[in-house]
């Protein structure tokens, strides 16, 4: 008896959860939408499961040493991801070092300084940088940026700064520096767009208060920056997430050699470019499985990085509904 009423109770709770109006059409409609929404969660889970099961061979064989071994030699069946981890992290850090000051400068200019009739079209042009496909940046990198770096910039740097290990090594034009610069151009519009939203979400009263206390315009902007710091951090981490996973442009200019070198000029290799480059050529199950494991690592890292960044940005912009206003 009680079991029946419990079951019935659960049924009616469910029914109410799906359709508060009690209308059959509503129930069907809401259920379908819910199903599609849950499909999204399902896709993410399926990604983890599919990547993990395809890389099981490599996971079993190498275990944790996959992350710490620096030997990547498919012919001998040795697979270590360290050179790729190094290349991915190093190129992303170079990109952020170049891009973050620029992005913050652009955002300050567009939100705090430029008059509206300049800010709107210029903001659009900066956003267009994000619309350029990755492979186009790659083509431009191979035929324009790499030759310029090889012929003019890198020899100059090597001449004056060769006592720093960063600027030693052979000059090819394809390496960490080229990859980092291309990445910097690619993440700048992303970071600056989010920083713009964050700055626009800082309440006007903060600016008025600073000015009323006798702050100069620059001091007022510093107050705004301090106020938006969590959001700016989020924007930078969001840019990091993008840089870590960027594939085509980096693959085309970074040189693709699985070695760990501290020189900015020497060829390097990132996780994404290793997958792009070697996946279709991978002979043997273990090789393929090792490449899928690289994909799994990239997935997990970018998932965590992006999730963290979203939380930071959400907290800032949702408080005041700044996203709508900035758009």
């Amino acid at each position, binding site marked *: 008896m009680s079991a029946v009423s419990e079951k019935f109770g659960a049924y009616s709770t469910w029914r109410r959860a799906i359709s508060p109006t009690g209308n059959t059409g509503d129930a069907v409609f809401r259920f379908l939408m819910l199903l*599609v929404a849950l499909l999204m969660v399902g896709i993410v889970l399926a990604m983890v499961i599919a990547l993990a099961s395809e890389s099981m061979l490599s996971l079993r064989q190498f275990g944790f040493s996959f992350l710490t071994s620096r030997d990547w030699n498919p012919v001998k069946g040795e697979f270590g991801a360290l050179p790729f981890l190094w290349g991915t992290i190093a190129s992303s850090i170079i990109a952020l070092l170049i891009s973050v000051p620029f992005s913050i400068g652009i955002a300050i200019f567009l939100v705090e300084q430029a008059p509206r009739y300049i800010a709107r079209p210029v903001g659009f*042009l900066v956003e267009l*940088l994000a619309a350029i496909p990755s492979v186009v940046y790659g083509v431009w990198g191979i035929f324009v940026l790499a030759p310029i770096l090889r012929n003019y910039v890198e020899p100059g740097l090597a001449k004056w700064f060769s006592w720093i290990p960063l600027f030693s090594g052979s000059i090819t034009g394809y390496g960490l520096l080229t990859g980092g610069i291309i990445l910097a151009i690619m993440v700048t519009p992303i970071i600056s767009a989010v920083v713009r939203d964050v700055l626009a979400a800082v309440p006007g009263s903060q600016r008025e208060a600073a000015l009323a206390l006798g702050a100069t315009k620059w001091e007022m902007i510093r107050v705004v920056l301090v106020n938006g710091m969590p959001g700016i951090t989020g924007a930078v981490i969001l840019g990091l997430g993008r840089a870590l996973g960027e594939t085509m442009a980096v693959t085309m200019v970074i040189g693709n050699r699985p070695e760990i070198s501290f020189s900015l000029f020497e060829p390097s290799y990132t996780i994404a470019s290793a997958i*792009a480059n070697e996946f279709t050529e991978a002979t043997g199950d273990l090789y393929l499985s090792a490449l899928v494991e690289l994909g799994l690592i990239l997935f997990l890292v970018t998932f965590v990085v992006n999730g963290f960044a979203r939380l930071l940005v959400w907290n800032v912009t949702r408080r005041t509904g700044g996203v709508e206003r900035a758009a």
Partner: protein
Amino acid sequence: MTTLTGLCTLLAVSALLVILFYIAWRGIGSLNIQFLTDRPRPIGEGGGVGNAIVGSLVLLLISAGIGLPLGICVGVYLSEIGRGKLSHAVRFIVDTLTGIPSIVTGVFVYAIMVVPMKHFSALAGGVALALIMIPIVARTTEEMLKLVPHSMREGALALGAPQWRVTLGVVIPAAASGIATGAMLAIARISGETAPLLFTAFGSRFFPESLNQPIASLTVQIYNYAISPYDEWHAQAWAATLVLMTLVLGINIMVRFLTRSRLR
């Protein structure tokens, strides 16, 4: 200080202009009717990217066919139906899906479609692009639906319409132009994707005949030509890049002009 921040902005804008003009300058030389309609030929025989243009359009159609309805449904769920923790979780998942590197999406689709089917196919490429498209469409749809005034929903409900008719008949039509904008931007975004196609659609030197076969795409063709050692193919890569950029920037600028009045 204004000088410094202005300089940052100026540099970013000039980077854009330099890239665009350089593409136009290098690409325009090899652009002609044969290039746009022919399929690739061996070195020295000319040839073109006609098959890749058709292939890209086929891939866009498949992915839009899958991605738009699903993306819009998720957007409707987030804006009209979802409440509480579950909808927050879905929104979070959708947002992080946007950030997953497209190459990983490619590996995923390889694992779930190419491995069981045992060959590369246009269908797999379309699914990979759809997966990239869904979160973008979902979030723009959600934002646009939220802009529809509550009074419209209440008015329709007060007339006795059930929620599904309110949503389908009143709310979505009111936001239709915004949703279309988001869809266009998503299409522009995926038409530039290369990485997820490398080992799903793979590429081909012929015009597409079946969705079950590997298919060429403009982006993969550009990549293959650009990393080849031949000058003739390099020239073709630039011309193909010009075609791709015209498509992508064309959509972006068009959307901008169409939405200008609404954003103000």
